[in-house]
């Protein structure tokens, strides 16, 4: 680790990870995007508009909440929840879609496309597109369309066209493929809002920069509330945007441990999981080099998680680098453990977490008891669980 972390390099690399692995037709557009992103992230007028939107439309800052009862119950570290679930649209995703949509507008693009897994990023994109009066097309795997019908309807209400993707495994990775195909075809008027810290450079850096508002606020709030930095951060990792948003402002604070929690599905040892950092190996997919879940021939394998938002065979390249460098630790939580975490938080704090965030909750129940009572953990509560009620009821055999 260098003393001041400043990745990616000018070519979009985090060590051996990241980069721009795209077909030639997209090289021009990502270059154009990179220039706009570098320019507007320095532009006071753009940043003022972004801040105002985050405050008045999203409802930031989100609270940092001391979960005292849950802390007492676990009998170890003091647990603080960063309440991204209280954002407009119910998750951290909107921090990024607001930023990218403002960029799209500045770049004169009239059409927005996005991929979505659980539908949270699709909803957050459709929301900002509606507000800015931009045409919006959301690609979603046919399997996800079936299991997240509520979000599909929400997107339609918001005026977006939802395209069910029938190719490949019909899940998030295929939705991303299809969105890339759309972008290649309609590059002139279209802005592709990627929902996570993956894709070709500049997306991993840009999405991170829009999400770091989480970590900046959390750091300031923690200092104000407790007078010191936290000892550990815990966040779930699918693509990894909520985790990097929390981690990034703390990377140079060596005393702060970072735990990224991947989805182990039925258990990493069963092969039915979504945990590339814990059980995958480096490869190239969707424009960047990162850890992937693939077979010996380099074909991408179908992933599994109860949480559609973590059901992705890759992970942001910056996480790959943080793993290799040892700065962050990546662990995994099974579907069953996540469900227990879901119930724990719901019953003890009156907060219903998203199934994605429940992975972070579940890991905290293992970590907190090993730490002293005066230590502090910040857990990113990346989204709320309303969208998951049907999945949960079905899983637990309850008819609504």
């Amino acid at each position, binding site marked *: 680790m260098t003393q001041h972390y400043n990745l990616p390099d000018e*070519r979009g690399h985090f060590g051996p990870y990241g*980069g*721009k*692995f*795209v*077909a*030639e*037709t997209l*090289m*021009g*557009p990502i270059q154009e995007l990179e220039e706009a992103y570098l320019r507007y992230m320095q532009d006071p007028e753009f940043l003022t508009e972004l801040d105002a939107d985050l405050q008045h439309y999203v409802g930031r800052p989100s609270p940092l909440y001391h979960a005292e009862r849950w802390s007492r119950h676990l009998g170890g570290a003091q647990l603080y929840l960063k309440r991204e679930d209280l954002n407009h649209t119910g998750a951290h995703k909107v921090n990024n879609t607001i930023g990218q949509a403002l960029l799209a507008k500045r770049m004169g693009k009239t059409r927005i496309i996005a991929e979505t897994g659980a539908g949270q990023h699709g909803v957050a994109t459709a929301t900002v597109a509606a507000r800015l009066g931009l045409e919006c097309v959301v690609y979603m795997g046919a399997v996800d369309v079936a299991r997240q019908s509520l979000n599909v309807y929400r997107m339609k209400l918001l005026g977006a066209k939802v395209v069910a993707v029938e*190719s*490949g495994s019909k899940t998030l*990775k*295929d939705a991303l*493929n299809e969105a*890339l*195909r759309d972008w*290649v*075809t*309609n*590059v*002139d008027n279209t802005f592709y809002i990627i929902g996570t810290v993956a894709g070709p450079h500049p997306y991993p850096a840009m999405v991170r920069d829009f999400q770091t508002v989480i970590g900046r606020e959390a750091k300031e709030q923690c200092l104000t509330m407790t007078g010191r930095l936290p000892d550990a951060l815990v966040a779930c990792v699918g693509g990894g945007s909520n985790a990097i948003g929390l981690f990034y402002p703390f990377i140079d604070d060596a005393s702060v441990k970072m735990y990224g929690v991947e989805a182990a599905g039925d258990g990493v040892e069963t092969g039915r999981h979504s945990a590339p950092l814990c059980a995958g190996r*480096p*490869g*190239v*997919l*969707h*424009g960047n*080099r990162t850890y*992937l879940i*693939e077979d*010996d*021939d*380099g*074909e*991408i394998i179908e992933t599994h998680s109860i949480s559609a938002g973590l059901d992705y065979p890759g992970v942001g390249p910056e996480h790959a680098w943080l793993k290799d460098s040892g700065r962050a630790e990546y662990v995994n939580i099974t579907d069953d453990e996540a469900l227990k975490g879901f119930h724990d938080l719901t019953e003890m704090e009156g907060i219903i977490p998203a199934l994605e965030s429940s992975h972070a909750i579940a890991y905290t129940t293992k970590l907190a008891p090993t730490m002293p009572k005066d230590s502090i953990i910040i857990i990113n509560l990346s989204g709320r669980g309303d969208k998951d009620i049907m999945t949960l009821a079905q899983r637990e055999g309850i008819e609504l």
Partner: protein
Amino acid sequence: MSRLAAKFEELSKSGRKALIPFLTAGDPHPDFTVPMMHAMVEVGVDIIELGVPFSDPMADGPVIQKASERALAHKMSLRKVLNAVAEFRRKDDQTPVVLMGYLNPIEAMGYEDFANAAQRVEIDGVLTVDLPPEEADFCVSLLKERGIDPIFLLAPNSNEERIRKMDAAGSGYIYYVSLKGVTGAGHLNTADVEERLKLIRANTQLPIGIGFGVKDAETAKTVAHLGDGVVVGSALISKIEANLDNPEQACSEIVDLLKAMRAAMDE
């Protein structure tokens, strides 16, 4: 001189253009591939682009996506594609073969292992859709050291700087993607392609193969006038898709289409 360079030189001397069919290896079945390649050579094609199937073919339209899925259903892999080329070479040590696919199967096999194996089975060129010259230094030198041409794509929105990059990194030929979009899409705009080709020619001496939008004898002929080679992919694969229960029929329809293209291009 590489087999590809020699081929383009020979064509240029006789005033002809290269006919370059694309075939996804292993589609509809691994046994189909090598006999189909020989049949293509008999019709008079000049170079064969052999597609390596990948689970996530981001730059391909539905026709080639499905071809990839069919091949993968038969457990086709990069190693098996290399074996197929070895088998092809037993009867044909003349026709240049170019592998076309995505980076991850090569990354998984290991760059050096791949380059060695490609040299062993006499692959002439490698075109990796998602490997732009910016990321390709390592791979390009491994291939060039072994006499294999790295082939790059140019698109309608590639500027002069990028054309020069491809010229520096690539050899054999440049594949010009004639439209913004995925394989098998849309219609060719001849005037646009003509305009772009002027810019490309001004910045590279490499032969230009033109693909995307070549559907029949007529479009093949039009494209042949513009570039040095005509790449045809989805139009051929459609014949496989239309005759899944009858591969012999697919083969004979592909042969007929290529014959018609060859004749139109040589008129």
